[in-house]
């Protein structure tokens, strides 16, 4: 597809990288020449200098012949303007990033007038993701497939725990619920394991399980599970505001630390159910004074990655059971492996993933069969959901008779309203949705790409 992206910031760059990889033709509009010079050496896309909301620039980008325009500049008004102009020019789909909560409410009213196919709010998506993690503490990450019936969750093998030093065959015997380990991260390497794989302490494992079995899985693994009752949020950013609202609504006691007096006051006004504290959330004394070690969950949400890291390390050391760290730059995530900071959330990646999911759905309408994609192990492994269509080969053949390419794993089969964890005797049938896990340097565009034998 032909896609125009306006704004080459963090989100725009992530999107451009991922979407070119998937075979789309990208034109990126950016009004900073230095950024253009830097990026044009990294990506095989067309770069245009100028204001993405102006007709001339959009025309030069061939927007009227493009399938999608994504407006991801840092200004909401420009993003909306881009989408209006693009829609008037004849671009069928437009996505705008809207960050200001004040605009969000009217978006539902204006969506049609503005010609928007989708609005995306990174802060809200991030807040929602954190909220989901806080619902079942113990998982580092949750991704849903098959309309929420299957999840892939990330777990860490703690020293001395059940997961330490167990082979996957034994593990499946010991667990009462049926789960499938689909990827393992050890240090910087990612593995797609088979039954003889032995999990070691410190490994992060990715488990596929029906959503309904998640709680039972935690029990089996001996991970103490208790609902989050007290949460501390450090930094009163927009994410914090969204998150606090969700938490308060579900009955969690929220303590929110904000350094800026005015902002703290505004938050107190906007969030009546939460305790807002005007104090430096990076100060150890204040954190202790506010009982950080007694919290069920600590979330660091300041605008400084360094502060978030330091505070998270501190909370971790005090033994807080769930520590969630927000990082804007994800390039250095590898460095924190083993430091205990496992739960890292990156707004730009979440935002890019949401948009990519939309793009895949668009393609799906055009006959391709990818439904969803999730990145695991810092993007080294991908889990993708496909539809089984007329053109899919090997339908109806038991899986044990089908040769798959190396490093490809069938993680789940969704049929009718239930999901099957595939065994050797299961088959793929028309209308099923299949979750496939594979290493990321292989790009799967079609379900048929997973079979080892060549097309006849």
């Amino acid at each position: 597809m032909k896609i125009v992206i306006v704004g080459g910031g963090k989100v725009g760059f992530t999107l451009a990288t991922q979407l070119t990889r998937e075979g789309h033709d990208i034109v990126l509009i950016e009004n900073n020449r230095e950024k253009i010079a830097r990026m044009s050496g990294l990506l095989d896309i067309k770069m245009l200098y100028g204001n993405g909301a102006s007709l001339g620039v959009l025309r030069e980008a061939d927007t009227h012949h493009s399938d999608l325009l994504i407006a991801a500049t840092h200004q909401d008004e420009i993003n909306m303007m881009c989408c209006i102009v693009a829609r008037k020019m004849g671009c069928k789909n437009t996505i705008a990033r809207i960050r200001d909560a004040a605009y969000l409410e009217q978006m539902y009213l204006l969506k049609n007038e503005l010609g928007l196919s989708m609005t995306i709010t990174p802060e809200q998506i991030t807040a929602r993701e954190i909220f989901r993690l806080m619902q079942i503490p113990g998982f580092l990450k949750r991704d849903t497939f098959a309309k929420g019936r299957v999840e892939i969750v990330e777990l860490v093998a703690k020293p001395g725990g059940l997961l330490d030093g167990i082979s996957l065959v034994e593990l499946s015997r010991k667990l009462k619920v049926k789960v499938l380990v689909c990827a393992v991260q050890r240090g910087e390497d990612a593995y797609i394991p088979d039954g003889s794989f032995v999990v070691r302490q410190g490994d992060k494992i990715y488990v596929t399980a029906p959503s309904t079995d998640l709680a039972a899985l935690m029990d089996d693994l001996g991970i103490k599970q208790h609902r989050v009752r007290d949460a501390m949020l450090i930094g009163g950013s927009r994410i914090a505001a969204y998150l606090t609202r969700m938490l308060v609504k579900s009955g969690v006691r929220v303590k929110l630390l904000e350094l800026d007096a005015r902002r703290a006051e505004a938050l107190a006004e906007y969030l009546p159910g939460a305790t807002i504290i005007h104090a430096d959330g990076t100060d150890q004394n204040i954190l202790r004074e506010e009982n950080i070690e007694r919290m069920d969950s600590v979330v660091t949400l300041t605008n400084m990655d360094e502060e978030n890291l330091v505070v998270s390390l501190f909370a971790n050391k005090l033994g807080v059971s769930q520590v969630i760290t927000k990082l804007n730059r994800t390039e250095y995530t590898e460095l924190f492996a083993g430091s205990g900071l496992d739960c890292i959330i990156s707004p730009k990646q979440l935002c890019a993933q949401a948009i990519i999911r939309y793009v895949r759905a668009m393609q799906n309408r055009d006959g391709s069969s990818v439904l969803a994609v999730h990145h695991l192990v810092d993007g080294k492994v991908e889990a993708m959901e496909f539809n089984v269509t007329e053109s899919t080969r090997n339908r109806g053949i038991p899986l044990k008779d089908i040769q798959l390419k190396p490093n490809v794993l069938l993680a789940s089969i969704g049929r009718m309203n239930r999901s099957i964890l595939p065994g050797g005797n299961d088959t793929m049938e028309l209308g099923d949705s299949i979750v496939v896990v594979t290493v990321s340097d292989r790009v799967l565009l079609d379900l048929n790409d997973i079979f080892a034998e060549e097309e006849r």
Partner: protein
Amino acid sequence: MNYRKICNIIGRIFWVEAAFMLPPLGIAVYRGEHASVRGFLIAIALLAVLGMAGVFLLRPRRDSFYARDGLMTVGLAWILVSFMGGLPFFFSGSIPSLVDCFFETVSGFTTTGASILPAAEDMPLSDMYWRCFTIWLGGMGVLVFVLAVSPKKGSATAGDEIHLLRAESPGVTVDKLVPRMRQSATILYTIYIALTILQVIFLLSGGMSLYEALVATYATAGTGGFGMMNDSFASYSPYIQVVVTVFMLLFAVNFNVYFLLLIREFRKALCNQELIAYLGIVAASIAVITWNISHMFPTLAESLRHAAFQVASIISTTGFMSTDFDLWPELSRTILILLMFVGACAGSTGGGLKVIRVVILAKAIRRAVLQAVRPNSVRIIRVDGAVVDEDTVRGTLNYFAVFMAIQFLSVLLVSIDNFDFVTNFTAVATCFNNVGPGLGGVGPTRNFAAYSDFSKLLLSANMLLGRLELYPILAIFVPSTYKK
């Protein structure tokens, strides 16, 4: 520096070169030119083996590829491809000296067309075909071709393709026609092939044989200018001369113009300052020279034809001739020398400084003068209404400075051979700008055979520097390229 990857890419280029030697090998077999058959067979075998070594033994361990890797690859690839391309002449014995073989092939790939052959007519037809085909291949770029045909990679953001094409394509800024590099390369080659076929048809209808038409077209399309005859086009009919004139001018136009015409963006294609400046310079030069040489030819039409042919030949940096212009009056000869430096449009197959650089330089000079008068005025340079940012202006001025420094340094070194100044100066200028013939001792009816081996190597370096726009070749010789 990712040496393995560089070797790997060069290995693939060798394979492509070997494949392109097959048609001339066929001609050699068909015509029973035994020496040439041997020459091509040995060269193909060597290329295939070395290519295999590069591709299979040196699989890249890392995928990293940066601007300096791109420069290095392009520089090395052109030198090696030229050297290997000269081997058929060496093994067949049609050019006995290895330095001469190198000079001749560099001259082909860089689309210069300067020759050391005393009598081109004596060359076997298969060798002649290969000699002219190197021009066609070099015109659009060897690596561009390899990238356009090589299998598509599934993963990676293809940083290597970007850096390679950037290092190989001439011009101030590299514009992509469409988002994908590979697709842009394919479009450019399609236009190139279409124009080539068109010219072959025109030449065939002028009574040329298929072989002659092909070889002449290769030499024109790449704006190289190897002649099949030592008198180039002087003995061909006026019709052929006119066709060649038109096509020389066409191949020196920025290919983006053709792309814009194809997608029906007529206004954008034609209201383009570089194109207007180019056509203006051509028209003015033809007018002045026609007037200047009118006393030498019986009719005005004939002087117009010769003036047009020569102007097209020099500004497009092809280097054909329809008459010995070294005998023309001083004004005409000087205009031709200046046209050598102006050169063709960016994004074409021609060489020289490029018209767009001349346009920017002229505007920069005007600004410098105006700012001397009013020191506080703020002036911005525009081309086609769009602002040219200061980095580009500075880059152009730097380019001009380095260009001139190399020109004069080379003249100094070449003068060791003790020829007169006009000969030395035009020899360097004609090689550096990828034109072909100079004046005096290297005039249109003469050749470069008289120069020493040292000078021939230096002039070969000049040709490569001119074709690749300095930096890829300079990068090879700068120690900091190799430092960690």
